C-alpha cells in the first residue's frame, strides 16, 4: 500500500531537474552567534569595567551546510524551531553574513522572509509595492509598472491608497505574496506563507506554487507543512542542530521531520528523573542509550545496535536483588525485556546509597518509532517481592524509513516467484 501520494511522474520530474544546471550553490556555510552572558549594552559598563572579560555563550547556528539547487527545482527546507533554518534563510537572503563558506547564485533572487517584509506602515499600498519591488531587485520604472497587477492579484484594488497600518494582517500577507509573485525573480526564497491567511488565500498560494513549478521557476520553500513539501518539492532537506540531517526525496524528509518533531514535542529523549514511585527501596539515578563504543546518544538509527545503560541506587537495604528492564513502544506494548539476578555477579544485597550499574547490548531489530525504558526490582531472587517500580525512565527514538508492520524487523528480503507447480 503506497503511504505517500508520490507518483512515478513526480519522481521522474525530480530526476530530470537534477540534470539542469545549478543556480544556487551553498558550500560549507557556517554561522556562530556570540550571545553575551550579561549583555553589556552601555558605554558606562565598558568604562567602569574596562578589563572585565565579556563572557559569551557561543551558539553555533549553522555548522557547515552544503547543498545545490538546480534550475527549475522546487526545493524544500524543513527543520524544527531552533534548527538553524531561519539563520540559513537570512544568510541566503543577505540579511546576515556567514562566518565561513560561500553562496553563489545565478540570476536575481527575491527573498520573501517573514510577512510584511520591509513594509512601511505609514505608506499606502501603492508606495509599499514599489518599495518592496525595488527591494526585490526591480528598477523603479519596472516596479511602478507592476503595481496594478499586484493589486489585482491580491484583490486589493479598492485599498490601494489606504495606509498599510490600517491593513489587516491577512491583507498584508496577500499584498506581500503578490509583490513577490509579480516581481518574477529567477529564484524565489519563500518562508512560511501557507501558515497564515484564510483558506481562499491558501488555495491561491497553492495554485501559484503549482503554476510556478510548471513554469519552471526555481523556488526554495521553507515550511512546516509536510503536505506542501510532498506535493510540490522535487527534493527537500532537513536541518537539525545546524547540520543537514537528510537531503533527498520529499517523502523521506517529511517522515524524518515528523518523527523528529514528535520526539521534540511529546517527550524529550533521555533520562527522566523522578520516574520512580514513592516508598521504593531503590531508584534509578541515571539511564541512557549509548553506541557500542560507549558514547552517549539520544536516539538511534534503525538497524544500528546500541547499549541500554542504567544506574540503580539503594534506598533501603534488600537481599538477593533481581533487576528487570523492559522496553515499551508508544502504545505501551512491551516489546522486549531482560532481567539480572545480582547474586550471580556476587552482589548479594543492595545497601542504602550503594550504586549498581547495568549495561546491555541490544541487537537493534526495532521498527522506527518512539520507545521508552521501564525498570523493576525484586528482592529474594524472585519476582514476587517488588521493591522498585520505575516507569518511563528513559525515552528514545529509532529513526528510519522502514515502514513494515509489527514490533521488530526480522525479515530483510522476501523472495517472490511464480509458482508453476500449482498450474
Amino acid at each position, binding site marked *: 500500500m503506497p503511504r505517500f501520494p508520490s507518483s512515478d511522474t513526480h519522481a521522474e520530474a525530480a530526476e530530470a531537474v537534477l540534470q539542469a544546471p545549478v543556480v544556487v550553490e551553498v558550500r560549507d556555510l557556517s554561522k556562530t552567534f556570540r550571545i553575551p552572558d550579561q549583555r553589556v549594552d552601555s558605554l558606562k559598563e565598558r568604562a567602569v569595567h574596562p578589563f572585565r572579560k565579556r563572557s559569551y555563550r557561543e551558539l553555533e547556528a549553522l555548522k557547515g551546510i552544503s*547543498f545545490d539547487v538546480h534550475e527549475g527545482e522546487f526545493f524544500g527546507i524543513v527543520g524544527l524551531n531552533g534548527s538553524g533554518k531561519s539563520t540559513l534563510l537570512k544568510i541566503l537572503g*543577505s540579511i546576515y553574513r556567514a562566518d565561513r563558506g560561500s*553562496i*553563489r547564485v*545565478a540570476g536575481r533572487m527575491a527573498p520573501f522572509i517573514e510577512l510584511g517584509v520591509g513594509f512601511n506602515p*505609514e505608506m499606502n499600498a501603492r508606495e509599499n509595492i514599489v518599495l518592496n519591488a*525595488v527591494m526585490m531587485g526591480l528598477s523603479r520604472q519596472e516596479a511602478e509598472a507592476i503595481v496594478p497587477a499586484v493589486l489585482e492579484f491580491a484583490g486589493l484594488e479598492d485599498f490601494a491608497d489606504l495606509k498599510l497600518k490600517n491593513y489587516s494582517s491577512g491583507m498584508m500577507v496577500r499584498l506581500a505574496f503578490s509583490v513577490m509573485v509579480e516581481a518574477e525573480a529567477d529564484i524565489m526564497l519563500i518562508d512560511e506563507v501557507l501558515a497564515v491567511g484564510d483558506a481562499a488565500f491558501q488555495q491561491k498560494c497553492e495554485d501559484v506554487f503549482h503554476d510556478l513549478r510548471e513554469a519552471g521557476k526555481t523556488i526554495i520553500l521553507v515550511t512546516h507543512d509536510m503536505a506542501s513539501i510532498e506535493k510540490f518539492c522535487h527534493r527537500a532537506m532537513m536541518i537539525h542542530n545546524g547540520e543537514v540531517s537528510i537531503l533527498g526525496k520529499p517523502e523521506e524528509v517529511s517522515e524524518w521531520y515528523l518523527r523528529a518533531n514528535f520526539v521534540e514535542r511529546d517527550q524529550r529523549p533521555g533520562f527522566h528523573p523522578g520516574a520512580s514511585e514513592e516508598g521504593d527501596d531503590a531508584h534509578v539515578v541515571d539511564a541512557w542509550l549509548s553506541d557500542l563504543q560507549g558514547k552517549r546518544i539520544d536516539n538511534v538509527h534503525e538497524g544500528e545496535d546500541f547499549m541500554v545503560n542504567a544506574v540503580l541506587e539503594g534506598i533501603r537495604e534488600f537481599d538477593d536483588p533481581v533487576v528487570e528492564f523492559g522496553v515499551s513502544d508508544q502504545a505501551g506494548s512491551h516489546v522486549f525485556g531482560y532481567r539480572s539476578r545480582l547474586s550471580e555477579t556476587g552482589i548479594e544485597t543492595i545497601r542504602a546509597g550503594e550504586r549498581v550499574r547495568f549495561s546491555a547490548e541490544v541487537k537493534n531489530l526495532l521498527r522506527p518509532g518512539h520507545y521508552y525504558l521501564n525498570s523493576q526490582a525484586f528482592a529474594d531472587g524472585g519476582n514476587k517481592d517488588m521493591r522498585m517500580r520505575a516507569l518511563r525512565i528513559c525515552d528514545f527514538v529509532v529513526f528510519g524509513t522502514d515502514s513494515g508492520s509489527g514490533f521488530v524487523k526480522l525479515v530483510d528480503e522476501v523472495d517472490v516467484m511464480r509458482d508453476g507447480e500449482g498450474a
Partner: protein
Amino acid sequence: MPDVPEPMEPARNPELRPVTGPSALGGGWRRFLDLLLLISINDFRKTYFGTALGYVWSLARPLMLFAVLLFVFTRIFRVGSEVAHYPVLLLFNIVMISFVQEATQTAVVSVVNQEGVVRKTHFPRLVIPLAVVMTSFFNFCTNLIAVIIFVVAFGVTITWTWLLFPVVALLLFVFSLALSMLLSSLYPRFRDVGIIWSVLVTALFYATPVLYPLEIVPSQYVDIVMINPLAPIFEQARHWIIDPGAPGAVAAAGGWVHLIPAIAIYVGVCVIAVLVFRREAPRIAEEL
C-alpha cells in the same frame, strides 16, 4: 543516512555569482539609488504633508528660536548691537546649525527605527542614515528660501560670492552625513550614544559661532573655538553671504596653520565614520 550533495558539473552552467551578504551599499548602485530616492521622497512628503501646516512647522522651529535669541542677544546681553546685520546673521546661522542638529539627531535612532527592514530584507544599510540626512537637507534648502527673503529685506547686498554657497552646503552635508553614519551604526550596540549625542548637540550649538561672531571671542580662546570644524565653515559662510567686510575663515583663525586642527578633525570624523560603518553594516541585523 544523511545525504551529502554530490558535486554536479552540468554542461550548460549559468554564471554563478557569489552572495556576499549585507553591507553598506549591498545590492548594486542602481538599487541603492532607487531605494534612497524612494525613502527620501517618502520622508520628505511625510514632513510636508503629514501635518496640517506641513512646511510651516519646519520653518517655525528655527524662526521661533530666532525670535527668542534675537530678543535676548540684542535687548538683554546686547552682544548683537555691535555686529553688522546681526539679526540676519543669527537667522542664517540658526538655519545652518539646525540642519546639522536635526540630521544627526534623527539619524542616531534611524537604523533602529527601520528595524523591520534591516532585520528582514537585504537592504543597503547606508540608505538609512543617508536618507535622513537628505531629508534634513531638503528642509534646510526650503528654509534657506525664507532666509534669502529675510536677508534681502534687511538690505544685505547681493554679491557674486553667494554663488559659493554650495561649497558651504556641501561641507555641512558631508560632515552631518559622517556623524550620522557613525552614530547610527554605533547606536544599536551602545544605546547611550543617543543620550550622549543629545548633550553634545547642545554643546555644539554654543561652541559654534552661531550666536556670536568670532571677532568678539577673546583672542586667547579663538584657537579653541576654531578646533570645532563647524566654526571655520560658519565664518566663511558669513564672509561670503552676509557681510563681505567680515573676515573669512582663514583671516578669522589667524592664518592657515590655525585651521589645521579643524581640518584634521573634519577629515578624521569622515574617515572613522566610513570605517566604522563598513565594519558594523554587515552585523547590524544581528545586534538589533
